Structure formats: C-alpha cells, structure tokens
C-alpha cells in the first residue's frame, strides 16, 4: 500500500513537469515515425500483398509468407535482382571510397599542413562537389561521355574526337565510381582535415629531435595518429555511397547496370513492391554494418589516440620548397575540374538547341526563356515560362523551409531534454531513436514511408501523394543532424543561466522562450540553414513519394533526364546547384560574423 502511494506521488510529480510531458510526447511520436515504419517494412516483406496474386497462385493477401525473400535470394531472378546489384554496390562503393579518401587525404594534408598558396579560396572550391547535388555531377559526366551507341545524342567527347567513347567510360562501374568519388571526396577531406588539425606538431618535432627522418616521422607518428580518423572516414563514406540513388541510376540504368539502391526503384516501377522492400532491408543492413564497424573498431581507437589540445599546441607547416607552385597548380587544376567544370558543362548543355551538336550556331536561350514550341523538346516551354518548373521551385523552397524550421525546433527540444536530463533513461532512449534515421539509406527510408502511408493508418489518413508526407520524411531525416547541432548549442548554455531565471520565478515556458531560444538561436539558425540546403538537394529520399502535384526541382530534373530532355534537366539541376551554393555562402558568411558576445566564454 505504501509503495503504491509513493508511486502515485512520483507519477503526479513526473507529470507536473512540462519537460517530462514533452519527453513522453516526443518519444511516442518519434517511435511512430521512425521505429514503426521499419517494422511495417519488414512486415510487408513477409506477408502476401494484394498485388501478389499475379505472381503466385498461392497468394492469400494478409497471410504470412517467405515468398518475397526466397524470390530475391534464391530464385532464377535473384542474380539479376540481388546478387549482381549487390556486387555492383560493393564494387562502386569501395572504389569510390578509396579514390575519395586518397584525394581527400592528400588535399587535406596540402591545405592543413603545407605552405601551399591560395588556401583561402581553394578550400571552398574543393568542397563544391559535395555541396551541389550528386545528380549534377552525374549529368555533367553524361554530357561529356554520352554515347549514341546506347542511345541519345553524342556527348562532348565524341564531338571533339569524332569517335564514340568506349562503353566502360560512359556507363557502369567506372563512371559511377569516379563521380561518386568526386561527390564524396570533400566529405573525406573535411574529416581528415579535422584530424590533421588536431595533431600537435610538437609530437613530430620530438621525433625529429630523436633523430627520425621525415619519412619515418610520417610513417611512425603522423599516420598512426590520423589512422583512426581515416578509417572512420572510410566507413562513413562507404556507408553514404551505397544509399546513393540518382547518380548510379543515371550512369548505370541505360546499360542495365544496377546497384541495390537503383534496383529498389526499378522493382517498384515494375510493381514488385515487396521485393523492393526486401532490397531496402538489405540496404539498411549494409548501412547498419558499416556504422557498427565504425563504432566498434574506430570509436575505441580514436578515443585512445585523442590528442590533447591546450597549452603549447602548435601546428607547424611543412615547407614544400620548389614543389610549392607545381603542387599548387595541380591542386588548382583538380579543384577546377571537379568543382567548377561540372557546373560550366551543365550551363553549356542547357544552352544548346539540339542536344549533342557543339557548334556556336546551335546556342539558344530557349530552354531558359523560350515559350512553348511544339518543334522543340515536345513543346516544353523554357524554365521561366514552364508552370511545371515554376511550381516545382515554390514546392522546393516551401519544402526546404518548412522541413528546416520544424526539424530545427524539434531538434532543439530533443537536445534540451537530452542535455538537461542526463540520467533519465527515457531521455537517452529519445536521443537514440532520433539518431536512427541516420542509419537508413535514404531510398530505403523512402520505401518505408511508402509502405506506411500508402493506406490510412489508424487516425492518420493515407498521406501518400501529399505535401505533408514530404515534409514529414524530410523532417525526420534531418533529425539526427538537428539534434546534434541542438546539443552543441544547449550544452553551451550553462544550467545556472536557467536556474537563475527559475529562482526569479520564471516558468519553464518563459525560461525556454527568454533564455534558451535566444541563446541557442545562432547555433540553431546555422543548423536550420544546413537543413534547408540539405533538403533542397535531396532526391533519393523523396523520389518514391513524389507525385506530379508535389514535384520539386530535383524530381522534375530527374524526370526530364529520364525522358531525355537533357537541356531542361541540366537547367534545373543547375538552378538547384546555384541555390545550394548561395545557401552555403550565406552559412559561411554567417559563421564569420556570428554574435561575438554570445560565444564569448564567461571568465
């Protein structure tokens, strides 16, 4: 009886605290939006669906079956559906990761540790390929190496050399690996830069004093210290490449070259929904394994090698000597080729009246400002007059804006709960649940929402085809990042700042509005901008959920590319690329002029 009494006291007290109420509410909603779709996805793969009657006579909708799993893993179809794509995924993933890491690592060393000139402007150009949609790089590649043998108009390569490029150069493993590497090397570059910047050159100097040669220092001191960061970069980059959809689709599908991600799309297009879901699960498992590996082996190691920064920390620059200018030229050329050339190519392509004829007389602004002309591009008007595109612009901005704002606010609330209730198990759970979307390759996540919201679900109507669903998935997909930025922002706000307001009699809501939000705002705004740009260039996540009425720039660009309306798709992707670059520029500018007084530490 007594324990019961205490329990009910505890309960009323817990429920009186608005933060606890919020915690429970958020946990419920997030479980529904993150965990439940995953179970639903698994459930779909082991249940007969309505459409399965045309696949098998034994199908009884609603009954349990292993049919889909067997079809995918052990049937005459499996090599086409699963094993070939799986090998392709691993192949392109590994090659591109190795290339990205090599390029990223070398460039990081040049920029952080050497006296190479022009660092200030090399760095932003080197990150450009990661800022623009991966799709843009794929389109640029295609415009160079397109081959009429496969179909369509010739690319620049053929126009210049008057011979068609070999197929391996146009489609398949090679172009996919290279373009993936171009898109992801800045990611590896940033990770390695971070690791290199933490090396105290006194470590190297003390090796120098003990008589070690430069090579020996690099081999025995520098490399072992950055090795964990390298390994982490490797696994994270690999994990990212396998979820890529648009890029391998563009450079693979014309020759029936599929990765698991593109196969999800292709099987869905064929109406083999449950098999697509099996493939989605395969993707998720691969991604989980990569993250698990990175945590298990790298997480521990990097903790052991954590360099202590503080007093006497110095980062000495290595003099390149007479190699300074040649290396600079090489890096600058590389930066131009991967950062600027693809955008120039896109722009160039969007100005050609007839695709593939590289002649001055062929230039036109039709695809930008022209009215509808039945002679050109099936009558599609130019970008500025095209309702399809103008509508997509608004949808894109609206989607990016809403998702960024909502994700940041929810991220801030979750971060607040996680930071302020460090010993609460439910708060820890909330933290973990909000991180889960990071583990889902985006096309697999899209597949989950497709299964979940295709039909009415309890009190929630069928959201498929609505704009709300796009916002929902974008918000949930951004949560791991927005919680992370939120935690950084909240941790900087001392608990005492809030306690001082509590002593003054301010309620929790009052405190959150007047103290927490203003102080976290600069960090949260940055996070919001990052999300805005991220949602804008996203395609893999929402491609399965988009309908004509909810089209966004990326999806329209993808559709035009599928239909072979090259100029329009190039123009659209160029618009997205420019928008994201503007977004990044704003971020960069905001990062420089952040309120100094908010960041200054107390004495």
């Amino acid at each position: 009886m007594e324990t019961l009494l205490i329990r009910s006291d505890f309960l009323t007290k817990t429920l009186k605290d608005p933060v606890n109420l919020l915690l429970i509410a958020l946990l419920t909603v997030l479980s529904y939006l993150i965990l439940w779709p995953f179970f639903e996805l698994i459930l779909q793969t082991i249940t007969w669906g309505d459409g399965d009657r045309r696949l098998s006579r034994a199908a009884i909708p609603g009954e349990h079956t292993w049919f889909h799993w067997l079809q995918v893993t052990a049937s005459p179809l499996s090599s086409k559906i699963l094993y070939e794509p799986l090998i392709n995924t691993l192949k392109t993933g590994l090659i591109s990761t190795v290339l990205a890491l090599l390029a990223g690592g070398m460039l990081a060393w040049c920029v952080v540790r050497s006296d190479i000139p022009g660092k200030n402007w090399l760095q932003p150009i080197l990150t450009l390929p990661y800022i623009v949609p991966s799709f843009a790089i794929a389109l640029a590649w295609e415009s160079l190496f397109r081959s009429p043998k496969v179909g369509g108009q010739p690319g620049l390569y053929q126009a210049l050399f008057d011979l068609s490029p070999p197929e391996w150069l146009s489609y398949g493993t090679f172009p996919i690996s290279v373009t993936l590497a171009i898109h992801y090397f800045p990611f590896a570059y940033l990770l390695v830069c971070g690791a290199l910047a933490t090396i105290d050159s006194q470590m190297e100097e003390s090796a120098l004093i003990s008589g070690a040669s430069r090579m020996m220092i690099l081999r025995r001191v520098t490399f072992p210290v950055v090795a964990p960061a390298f390994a982490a970069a490797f696994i994270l980059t690999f994990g990212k490449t396998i979820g890529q959809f648009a890029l391998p689709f563009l450079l693979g599908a014309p020759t029936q070259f599929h990765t698991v991600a593109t196969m999800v799309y292709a099987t869905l297009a064929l109406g083999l929904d449950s098999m697509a879901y099996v493939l989605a699960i395969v993707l998720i498992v691969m991604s989980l394994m990569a993250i698990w590996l990175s945590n298990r082996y790298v997480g521990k190691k990097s903790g052991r090698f954590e360099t202590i920064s503080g007093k006497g920390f110095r980062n000495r620059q290595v003099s390149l000597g007479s190699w300074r200018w040649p290396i600079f030229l090489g890096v600058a050329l590389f930066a131009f080729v991967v950062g600027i050339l693809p955008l120039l190519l896109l722009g160039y392509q969007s100005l050609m009246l007839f695709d593939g004829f590289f002649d001055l007389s062929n230039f036109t602004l039709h695809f930008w400002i022209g009215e509808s002309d039945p002679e050109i591009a099936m009558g599609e008007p130019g970008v500025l007059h095209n309702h399809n595109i103008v509508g997509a612009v608004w949808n894109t901005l609206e989607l990016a804006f809403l998702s960024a704002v909502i994700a940041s606010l929810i991220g801030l609330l979750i971060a607040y709960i996680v930071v302020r209730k460090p010993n609460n198990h439910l708060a820890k759970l909330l933290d973990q649940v909000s991180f889960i979307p990071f583990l889902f390759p985006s096309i697999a996540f899209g597949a989950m929402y497709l299964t979940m919201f295709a039909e009415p679900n309890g009190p929630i109507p069928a959201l498929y085809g609505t704009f709300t669903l796009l916002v929902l998935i974008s918000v949930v997909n951004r949560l791991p990042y927005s919680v992370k930025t939120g935690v950084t922002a909240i941790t900087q706000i001392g608990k005492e700042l809030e306690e001082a307001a509590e002593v003054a009699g301010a309620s929790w809501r009052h405190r959150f509005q007047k103290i927490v939000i203003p102080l976290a705002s600069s960090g949260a705004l940055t996070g919001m901008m990052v999300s805005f740009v991220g949602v804008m260039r996203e395609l893999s996540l929402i491609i399965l959920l988009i309908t004509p009425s909810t089209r966004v720039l990326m999806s329209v660009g993808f559709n035009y590319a599928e239909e072979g309306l090259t100029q329009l798709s190039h123009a659209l992707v160029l618009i997205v690329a420019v928008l994201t670059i503007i977004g990044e520029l704003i971020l960069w500018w905001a990062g420089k002029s952040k309120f100094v007084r908010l960041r200054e530490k107390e004495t």
Partner: protein
Amino acid sequence: MSNIKIQKLTKRYGDMLALNDVSLTIESGEFLILLGPSGCGKTTLLRCIAGLETPDEGQIIIGDKVVFCSEKNIFISPGERNLGMVFQSYALWPHMTVRENMKFGLDVMKMPVQQADKRLAKVLTDLGMSELQDRYPSELSGGQQQRVALGRLLAAEPAVFLMDEPLSNLDARLRMDMRVELKKFQASTGSTTVYVTHDQTEAMTMATRVVVMKNGNIQQVSPPTQLYKNPQNTFVADFIGMPRINLLSAKRPKGAGSVFTNGDIELDIGWCPDQNEIIIGARPEDLAICKATKHKSSNFAVSSVLPNGPEVIVQLIGGSTSLLARVNHDVNLQQGELMEISFDKKALNIYDAETGQLINRPEG
C-alpha cells in the same frame, strides 16, 4: 526578513549521501556561512533551500511558509520562495544588457513599469553601475559582472539571499574589496543570508555564524571566533586555521594526572580529563619557543623557517613528531638549532582520541 528552519533534511544521489539528517535554524537577518571541503554537501544544502534540488526527506520552512515537506508532499517552486541567489559563475544572461538582467525578475513579478524603473535606478546607483547599464555581460570585467549578479538579487528585494561561492572567480585583491561590500549590503538590507564557500578566510571575516560541514553532516555551528578558539572536533580543528593546528595523540602514563606524552614530548595540560588517550590541539600561536640551554635540553630541532610578513612559521621536528609554531618576525633562527617548547595551557583543546570530540574542560 525571514528565518529558515531546516529539519532532518536528507538528500541522496544514488548511493551517495549528500545530506544526512541535517537540522539547522537560520535566524532572521543573520549572515550564515556554510563552509567545508568540496563534496561536503554545502552547495546541496543551499540548492535545497533554493528549491533547485528536491531533498528526499525532511522539512524546510522559510518564514512561516513550509516550502518543502517530504511527509506532506509539499514542494514550493523556487520562484515562490521569495529568495534571490547569486551563482558561482554569476549566471548572467549573455543576451541581455545589465539593465535587462536586473529587470528580468521584476518582469516575472509583473511589476508596474514606473515602480520597476525606480527600483532599478536605485540599485544601479547603489552599485555604481548606472553608466554601464546598457552594456552586455561580456563587455564587463569580472568584478563588474559580480556586481550585476548582486544587483539582480537586490532588485527583486527578496527576504532571503542565497550565495554560492560568489567571490571565487575574482582575483585576491578584488575579493577583499567585494567582501567588505557584500557585508555592507547585507547589513543595510538586513536580509537573511546563506552563503556557501570553501574559503575559510571568507567565512571567518564575513559570517555572524559559520556552519562547518563534512560528508553531508554538520560538524559545528558557531560564531567565527568560537570556531577558531574551540573547534568541536578534530576535523574542524584541522580544517580551520592557517597554518594548521598541531594535533598530538598522547597517552597518560600511569599515575600522572594532568601529564600526557606521545613519546617525543611530555605535556602538562593543566587539568584531568577522564580519558587516558587524548588528542591535544594546539594552534601554532599557542606554542612558545626559545633556544635550548645547557641545563634544560630539548630534542626538538628547527627543520624549516617560513617568514610570512609580520610573523614567522617555524617547523620543529623531534623524533617522529612535527610541530608548527607561529613566532614574531624578529626572531633569528637557524635550521638544526635545538629549541625548547612550551604551551599556553589555557588555549589547548583536548579531544577524545576515540571519538575525536572535544572534551569539555571543567568550569573554573
């Protein structure tokens, strides 16, 4: 003005007992200082009074209002306890100006604008901060930030002031000045003040009464002078005073009434406690030393001499016993010199060797 009654307060963090059945009455208008080493529970006690921590058991009454009672399940939130607090880090809101920082509490109270302006003007003038009122905290020096924290507390005119090591972030010289100023403000407002510190000089100079705590227990509650002269147990004796008190474990040789020895030194304490094993507490200034003469030999030699302005601290070692003495600065001592030691019997405190508690000297 309110008094504060703390009754049988217990607070646990997991297995750690932060407050163990603490009872304490703080008189109205008193400047009470909670003193102790880190982890002794002093800050926890302060935060329990503030309502920032919820105790597990016990009762807290401020004035005539029960603000916490575990039995009746009462918990009044911090804002309704009519108290103000100065935090160790000051906890100034960095996005508000000096004036906005001080006005926050008044806004929460929904005080009419005119009245609030008047009160802020007075506080700002009193603190000499009028010209800095539109600055942001990061544009102020440490001492000025400290004043803003104090001003934030004064503006709300609470009945109880709570201060959590408010001077620990200031440099030594500024700390001296602020001690004087704080004491002045406390006296002029007459508010009941509870102040936490680990700095005994701060406690000794400012408090009307000092509470010494250790491991969640109150060791002694006394005015500063008494705390220094008559520490209630060996912990307090050892904790209070710089340089440290000399604590000698000594036994009574058979038959000798008031004479005790530790093997290296023999000492007549002047009265006869019941216990045969005691600890003798002698402050360094209660020792007198002079150079040993031929007919009165000593086995205590000077091992180090530490001049400290007007006084000199001398360490003497004899056998396995080490003693500290505080002597006038004009004595000229050499290392290794043998010294004769005598004690001021009246100033000695005698503790039970088993319990460590003070053995009361019979009256007269």
